[in-house]
């Protein structure tokens, strides 16, 4: 199928969507409840909720939504026992935009608890399995959303990306994932993990799906001070734009010697295809890349330790009976999983008296350097191409007992969150039967360029995806 065919198929949503939705829901329920079940959904809609209440770009299109985004009808658990059964009394701006575009929410997808993890194994409700090979992880933290698309349950899903949580699972599952520029999409209603890094991202079966969804949810929101007032271009049209003359930077730091030869071969092929499509590749350097992981794990955990203080059992959510206030706090917060507790401890530590300068203040400096690296690079090149992850999906249980190894797998995705620049992951091949993702990073507000490059690559592979 050519990209044109896919575009055509997308346009059929308007008429076909209405019929397909309820049938799809029944099918999804059946599959998930069988031995083929992947534990993708934490909650599913009722058939009567699948009727679109408005007409727009996504009339009748079913969208899966990560369970850390507040919806009015379905619960928002964030994959945590602390919010088990929690019904948000308001909905996220992104969800409102979806509904106003005529979309319907098929269900809330599984995730690493509060977005903390890279495999969806940190969910309190069990891991999600990778649809391509069920003994492997789908990636995280938006593993459920990526699996929903890869399994064919929906064409589009919303996720969130703080350190790679949309791009990496998209890569692991062989679908497309976009993290927008920080401030592109409103965070109002996205349950905060790390406020200066979080963004709602989109996952799609094709570049066009992910781009169209992004276009719908983008835009300034008065309820989110960090969202930016800036025109939303036609991202869907960008998917078929020519990349003739585009200069693509290849950063040496993202292609270490340890990179598996078969992976390197696939990446090289992708570069050739870009050149065939009219682009030019150029080596560049992003010298402060080595500080990205330490910097991220200081800033993200610091902000997270603060953002998760509100889960105290007082106003909403789980509360444990107790003999006194402090005991109630501790018993209630004991419901956090071990990864979340680990990060809260780390974050509290780096902010505590005497350690702020050594860790937090230092990390802020590192962040400024990393951002400067990109600024400098984008004076020479239009976009940057890298692997999304050092490896394809790993096996279930393989890294769960080694937090540091788990953290290090974020090395290629984390810098974009630190700098606030947009990134997209697109499938570029298979390694050992598992999908491999290639990542494009763009300058601030350069989503269109990323989408064009990803679209060109996707087209060049034809229907291999």
């Amino acid at each position: 199928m050519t990209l044109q065919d896919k575009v055509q198929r997308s346009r059929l949503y308007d008429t076909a969507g209405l019929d397909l939705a309820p049938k799809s829901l029944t099918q999804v329920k059946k599959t998930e409840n069988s031995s083929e079940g992947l534990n993708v959904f934490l909650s599913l809609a009722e058939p009567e909720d699948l009727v679109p209440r408005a007409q727009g770009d996504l009339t009748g299109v079913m969208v899966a939504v990560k369970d850390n985004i507040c919806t009015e009808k379905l619960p928002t658990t964030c994959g945590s026992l602390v919010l088990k059964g929690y019904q948000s009394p308001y909905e996220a701006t992104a969800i409102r935009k979806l509904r106003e575009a005529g979309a319907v929410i098929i269900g809330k997808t599984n995730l690493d608890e509060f977005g903390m993890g890279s495999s969806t194994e940190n969910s309190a409700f069990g891991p999600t399995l990778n649809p391509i090979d069920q003994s492997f992880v789908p990636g995280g933290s938006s593993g459920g959303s990526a699996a929903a698309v890869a399994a064919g349950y929906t064409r589009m899903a919303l996720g969130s990306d703080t350190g790679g949580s949309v791009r990496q699972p998209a890569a692991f599952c062989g679908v497309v994932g976009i993290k927008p520029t920080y401030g592109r999409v409103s965070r109002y209603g996205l349950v905060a993990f790390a406020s200066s890094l979080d963004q709602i991202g989109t996952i799609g079966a094709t570049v066009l799906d992910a781009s169209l969804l992004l276009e719908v949810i983008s835009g300034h929101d008065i309820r989110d001070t960090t969202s930016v007032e800036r025109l939303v271009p036609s991202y869907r049209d960008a998917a078929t734009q020519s990349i003739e003359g585009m200069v693509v930077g290849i950063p040496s730091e993202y292609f270490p010697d340890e990179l598996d030869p078969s992976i390197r071969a696939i990446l090289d092929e992708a570069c050739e295809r870009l050149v065939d499509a009219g682009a030019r590749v150029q080596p560049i350097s992003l010298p402060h890349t080595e500080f990205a992981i330490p910097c991220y794990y200081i800033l993200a955990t610091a902000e997270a330790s603060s953002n998760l203080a509100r889960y105290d059992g007082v106003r909403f959510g789980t509360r444990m009976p107790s003999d006194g206030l402090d005991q109630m706090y501790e018993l209630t917060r004991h419901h956090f999983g071990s990864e979340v507790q680990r990060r809260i401890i780390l974050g509290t530590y780096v902010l505590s008296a005497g350690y702020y300068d050594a860790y937090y203040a230092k990390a802020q400096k590192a962040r400024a350097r990393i951002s400067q690296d990109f600024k400098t690079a984008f004076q020479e090149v239009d976009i940057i191409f890298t692997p999304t992850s050092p490896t394809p999906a790993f096996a279930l249980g393989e890294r769960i007992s080694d937090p540091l190894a788990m953290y290090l797998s974020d090395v290629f995705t984390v810098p974009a969150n630190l700098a606030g620049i947009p990134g997209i992951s697109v499938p570029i091949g298979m390694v050992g039967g598992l999908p491999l993702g290639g990542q494009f990073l763009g300058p601030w507000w350069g989503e269109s360029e990323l989408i064009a490059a990803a679209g060109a690559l996707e087209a060049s592979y034809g229907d291999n995806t």
Partner: protein
Amino acid sequence: MNWEAVIGVEVHLRLKTEHKLFCRDRAVFGAAPNTHICPVCIGLPGALPVLNAHAVELALQTALAFGCRINLDSTWARKSYFYPDLPKGYQITQFEKPIATDGRVIFSSSEDKGLVGIRRVHIEEDAGKLLHDKALGASAIDFNRAGTALVEIVTEPDLRTPEDVRSFLGELKQTVEYIGASDCNMEEGNLRVDANVSVRPVGSLELGNKTEIKNVNSFSGIEKALSLEIRRQLSLMKEGGLVNQKTLLWDDHRSELREMRSKEESNDYRYFPEPDLHPLVLSQGQVTAALDSLPELPRDRRYRFKKTYELKDYDADVLTQTATTADYFEDLVGINVDPKVAAKWVTGPLQALMNQHREDAQSIPVRPEIMGELIRLVERGVVSESAAKTVMVILAEDGGSPSDIIEARGLAQERDLGQLTDWVTEVLAKYPEEVSRYRDGELKILGYLVGQVMNSSGGAADPKIVRNLLIDYLNDS
């Protein structure tokens, strides 16, 4: 050896904004519990703060009124701790770079003038309210107050006596009321004061260990609490003991200070910059505009009243107690009422009327133009002062014009000599004993007789003429 007390004060004011600091809930006092809450101010998952710029304006004006230096770039910070009235588990406040620093307040002290340095002024959100008399063995929490805008003013430890603290707070409260930044009502919780106090030998430049006094809800309370604590510290130090740093809670019912049970050894608030908000950036133009929009401040207005209108200190103080009263007075002067006469009427009868109606000078129905008319009628002798007060009461309740009321109610002062003579003759006939007493030398009894004539006339007689008539008649035989 002589000792002195060293006192610094922390004042929290609730800003008079319509909405809360970071969301659009209305900031109301006295509403049913938890009826003015939203996802933002009760810290629901996914909610985000959005700055109410009006609060910034009021805080800016307050800081400028205290002569502070404004930081054009100030930052927001998260202050973390766990408490049931703190929804997010952190308070959004200003830490490293507050909106203003280095100000000063001049106040009238027992020894003429006092000066207090203002160390910093910053903006922060308030917490909810914990109540312990609603449910047995539990805290009841009302979040209506959570998220309302506060300004915190921290002074240098420049105060030396409890009386000075009280005077300073009075000046501060008055200034803020003049600006309209806060209602400054301690009973309504719009103004909270904490004090830090230590003692040291006079002449020493070192600071002794200080104790913190909290939970005071009146100016007299703070004065009493400080006096008590200073006495305690002095006797301790004089015996060669040491003051331990601690927090004391004032119990107003028992007039005593109680040590607060230390919750945590050290409160590690883990301040860091608030990532959900932009730094607060002001332009020089905005600061200048705020400065220009400041009204004349109490101290300056008092001084001007004394000089320009040649008023006594007491009158100037009373007239400038509130900006609205001072405005009213100046409106009267503006329509050519003599300042001293205006002062008399405003501080006397008008104030009484305002008290009775629980209105201030801005809302009292008797407006300056009408009041001016009435005063002129009194000056011309058309109506007596006491009758004029009656007219004022009627004006406040029913409105209308003074002349109409005087005519309708027959309150015009009677000056017809014939009529007056009749009344006088009547009274003289009725009270022969008092007449004899006067003629025997008891001159003071004249007042009683004047009073009786006034009664007979229903208050309408011109008392001056009555008095002279009586004297003539009494001396005449």
